[in-house]
């Protein structure tokens, strides 16, 4: 099995190469087959390798070396792939969910002029993302890391003729680049300390090389965290993700929900030893996650664009993953990534189907009444929403989120305040999900439906909906059933979560979590369905309007960024457009010319002038001699 790993990223790469070089000359059908086919093959291959992996677990990991990449005197780095349990989970999600999204896209993008360019970019993305999670050294991981950034840029700006889309793409690239740069510095520092960028070597050597909690290790951990925050849209680098919704819906599903935005989670989990050595960095990770999940959740409550609601919700859910990582609940974080990938991809795809059927209408208040008109979309959307809201027992989201809530207090690094924030977030999530559901699917129809989605689009929805319900059953809370398949798998790589001795018992947490979810759903139901007068009243009140606008604008982070970074930079560059140094040289040139002019006056060809000049000179010398 070892020498098949490289084929997983190679297949979509082949798809990319064919489509980018010859795509415009191929018929659409063939493009669809190549685009979706290569990723589906990669998914099948992953499943085959995965079964092998589960049946005969290797000691560490499957590895495969392709070629020596860079080798200088004291730095060496190869194109090496390494698949352990953590990589396997990510590879599975990337290829499997990726394949479903590709299949969906063959119908969704069918009428687009740039069909081939779309699939070329999507395939390149899948390839880069696979390299990211399969890399055995940080440099190769950085290659994938930048590669997914490029594809994200290309696909956000896919409809490039609208300037706003291009600007959204640029913004995504710029902001994630800030994180990437921090991460690059982190790599330099790691190399300076350990002399290698090989991940297993780093993890093995760091415990002996660094002292627990030293400033060095904290700096490294924080730099890596900053890289993760950029890609995973955590505060304060989150502003690009809502704008990234300018891309086609399958792109949002694949890149900005299921896979790329969780790259930060992967990075931190992958480098867990570094983080464990620095309690401060762990706490900061947890706080970043907690603050992000709250800020993004509150912003999601008031959005009107269906995709922006989901975008803020994604930021918020990734906040949960960061919180889990920060408190040391490693497997809970990865578990939430696992379930989130299914239900959030589903929600974006279903939202795409709604938007497409309603003639590109994004505003939820101009939707409504779709429950009976689009039953498949309704039921799948409902499954996704229920999972997002963490409806108890019957959805995957419940199992993963409940774990995080529990650990945010009781895990080694947990704290009651973190739990309170996470619980508030759960309430908010349930609320805005209910609001979204009710406004879009109940009530009266405001926009007539065009053509409903065909089977190629609905089948992936149904598969994802089923998974959104059942994917959680692989891991049950400790006090209910002894099913811990998922944590058994990932804890081959990640340390087990240490639980504090003291603290309330687990059942209390579960009851509170369930109550919170139900309360959130009830709030949404009563405000937007049972009695909408209260909302109407709030709309009239200026204070409430201010609050709403503040939340709507995502707590004003864009405004702040503009004020602190964008405008000063643009101003600074614009005033110096003609290059200040050039004035210096122009000054020298014009000075010489001036001198030339003033001296050339004396060369006028008139003899009288010259004689006078000579005489004055003689007089001057004589006077000088007399005086000295």
């Amino acid at each position, binding site marked *: 099995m070892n020498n098949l790993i490289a084929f997983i990223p190679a297949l979509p790469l082949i798809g990319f190469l064919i489509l*980018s070089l010859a795509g*415009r000359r191929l018929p659409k059908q063939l493009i669809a087959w190549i685009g979706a086919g290569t990723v589906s093959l990669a998914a099948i291959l992953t499943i085959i390798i995965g079964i092998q992996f589960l049946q005969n677990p290797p000691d560490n990991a499957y590895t495969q070396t392709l*070629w*020596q*990449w*860079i*080798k*200088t*005197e*004291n*730095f060496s780095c190869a*194109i090496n792939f390494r698949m352990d349990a953590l990589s396997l989970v990510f590879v599975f999600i990337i290829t499997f969910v990726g394949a479903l999204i590709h299949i969906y896209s063959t119908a969704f993008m069918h009428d687009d002029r740039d069909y081939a*360019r779309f699939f070329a970019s999507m395939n390149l993305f899948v390839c880069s993302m696979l390299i990211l999670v399969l890399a055995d050294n940080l*440099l190769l991981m*950085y*290659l994938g890391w*930048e*590669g997914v950034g*490029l594809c994200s*840029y*290309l696909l956000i*700006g896919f409809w*490039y*003729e*609208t*300037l706003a889309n*291009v*600007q959204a*793409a*640029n913004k995504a*690239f*710029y902001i994630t*680049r*800030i994180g*990437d*740069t921090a991460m*690059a*510095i982190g*790599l*330099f*520092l790691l*190399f*300076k300390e350990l002399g290698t960028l090989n991940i297993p070597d780093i993890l093995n050597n760091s415990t002996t090389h660094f002292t627990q909690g030293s400033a060095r290790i904290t700096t490294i951990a924080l730099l890596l965290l900053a890289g993760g925050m950029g890609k995973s849209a955590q505060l304060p680098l989150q502003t690009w993700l809502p704008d990234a919704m300018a891309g086609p819906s399958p792109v949002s599903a694949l890149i900005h929900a299921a896979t790329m935005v969780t790259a930060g989670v992967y990075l931190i989990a992958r480098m867990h030893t570094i983080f464990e050595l620095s309690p401060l960095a762990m706490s900061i990770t947890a706080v970043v996650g907690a603050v992000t999940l709250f800020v993004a959740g509150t912003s999601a409550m008031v959005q009107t664009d269906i995709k922006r609601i989901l975008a803020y919700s994604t930021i918020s859910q990734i906040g949960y993953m960061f919180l889990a990582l920060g408190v040391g609940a490693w497997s809970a974080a990865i578990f939430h990534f696992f379930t989130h990938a299914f239900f959030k991809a589903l929600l974006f795809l279903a939202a795409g189907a709604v938007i497409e059927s309603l003639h590109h209408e994004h505003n939820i208040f101009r939707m409504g009444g779709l429950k009976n008109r689009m039953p498949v979309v309704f039921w799948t959307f409902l499954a996704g929403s229920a999972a997002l809201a963490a409806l108890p027992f019957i959805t995957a989201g419940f199992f993963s989120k409940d774990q995080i809530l529990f650990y945010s207090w009781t895990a080694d690094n947990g704290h009651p305040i973190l739990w309170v924030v996470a619980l508030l977030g759960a309430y908010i999530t349930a609320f805005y999900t209910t609001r979204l559901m009710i406004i879009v699917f109940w009530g009266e129809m405001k926009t007539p439906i065009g053509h409903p989605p065909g089977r190629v689009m609905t089948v992936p929805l149904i598969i994802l909906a089923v998974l959104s319900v059942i994917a959680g059953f692989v891991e049950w809370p400790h006090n209910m059933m002894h099913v811990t398949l998922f944590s058994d798998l990932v804890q081959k790589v990640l340390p087990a979560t240490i639980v504090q001795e003291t603290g309330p018992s687990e059942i209390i947490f579960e009851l509170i979590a369930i109550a919170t979810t139900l309360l959130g759903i009830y709030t949404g139901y009563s405000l937007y369905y049972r009695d909408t007068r209260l909302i109407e009243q709030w709309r009239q009140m200026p204070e409430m309007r201010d609050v709403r606008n503040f939340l709507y604008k995502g707590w004003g982070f864009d405004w702040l960024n503009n004020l602190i970074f964008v405008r000063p*930079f643009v101003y*600074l*560059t*614009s005033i*110096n*457009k003609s*290059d200040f*140094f*050039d004035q*210096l*040289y122009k000054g020298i040139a014009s000075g010489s010319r001036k001198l030339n002019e003033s001296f050339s006056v004396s060369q006028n060809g008139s003899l009288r002038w010259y004689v006078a000049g000579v005489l004055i000179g003689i007089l001057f010398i004589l006077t000088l001699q007399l005086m000295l």
Partner: protein
Amino acid sequence: MILGIMISILLVGGLLCWLTAKWNIQLTKWIALLAVLIDFALISNIWSQHPTTTSTGSNAWFINFQANWIPSFGITFHLALDGLSTILLLLTFFLGILAVLCSWNEIKERIGFYYFNLLWTLAGISGVFVALDLFLFYFFWEVMLIPMFFLIGIWGDSNRRYAAYKFFIFTQAGGLLMLIAILALYFIHGAQTGTYSYDYLSLLNTKLTPSAAGWIMSGFLIAFVIKLPMVPFHNWLPDAHSEAPTAGSLILAGLLLKTGAYGIIRFVLPLFPDASAGIAWWAILFGVIGIVYGAMMAFSQTDIKRLIAYTSVSHMGFVLVGIFAFTEMAMQGVVMQIITHGISTGALFVMAGMLKERLHTRDIGRMGGLWTSMPRMGGVALLFTMASLGLPVLGNFIAEFLILMGTFLVNVPLTVIATLGLVFSALYSLRLMQKVFLGPVAVQQAVRDLSVREIVIMSVLTISIVLLGLYPQPVIDMAKTMVNDVVRR
């Protein structure tokens, strides 16, 4: 001797071009192409004949040819080739081929004289890369300068006169300082040993007092950093690059700037090891200033060629940083940067030339949405703007990564600022992409996509930059001996 032949082929080829242009213009072009092709074949052959594993450090010079020229002054005709020179000659002839190809239809006046100048500039550049006699080096330094002056001054754009003079005065001012420094070194060495010689290998043993070393080094260094260019001596570059014809910009960015880097590596560091170590911190600082300043200038430009020119300033800042880090890794990065910047910026200039040919403007404000009509060029442009912002898979990333990591080992704060250059490079690169190829369609008339000749040029460049990004090892091995020699001093 083979080195002399390579240079002569260009010189004779240039003369033939001038002579044949009166009768047959097609013949002229083919002669020019043939001359660079033969040279390219010759240097490729040398590369393949010298397997990199043999470079143990004892004999860095693959080829060493020395003949008397003016014995009474100790001037010899000394040409030699080591790993660095081989890499640079390969780059020279590679870009030379592309320069001839992209002039094919662009140049319509005084074709014979044009190719004469083009080939003579290339001859001067190749001479600079292999001359080991300082007098001869200075001679070639001038040979590459004057034809380039004509290339800009005659076939340039509307403001060509100004740009050509500026280019000439800046480089010449540096050149004169270098001449003084060469003479000073010559006389000091002569007084010490009794034999007056311009030979590099003998001059290496000159013992200089710290202050003398400092002064003489400055003479060399100023000449080289003007060429590089280092902020604040960079002002000749945006004008020269933007006014020059496409092949001129290609050679300026791809090769002429590299002579500055080459000069520092070949002459400044080995001849004045202590003095250069003394200024290392300041040199890195100026490199970092160049990275940030060049990137910020590039961001605000509206002339596409000026924009690319300023990105060169930024990228060459990395070279200066890497050279003065004195670590093996950073120096390897510098060698990579020299090549990859030549290719990627060369490609961007070629593309700017193609756009100018089609749209008759260099103003990016009047472009936009060109991807719609030129998807092929858009794809290639995307690749090379990504190269210039240092995307992995492409060669520039290897270069910048090695430079930054190698420098980080010796100077953390300045490297951190230099790394921020990665953010700035994203700013100008994406702005370029947006203004030219993305956004609303601004050009109404149909713009034709790449022709076959253009596809050939761009795909050769594309393949090279991807290959360098995925498998840079041959270059690293080739440069290994030189890098170790320089760093160990």
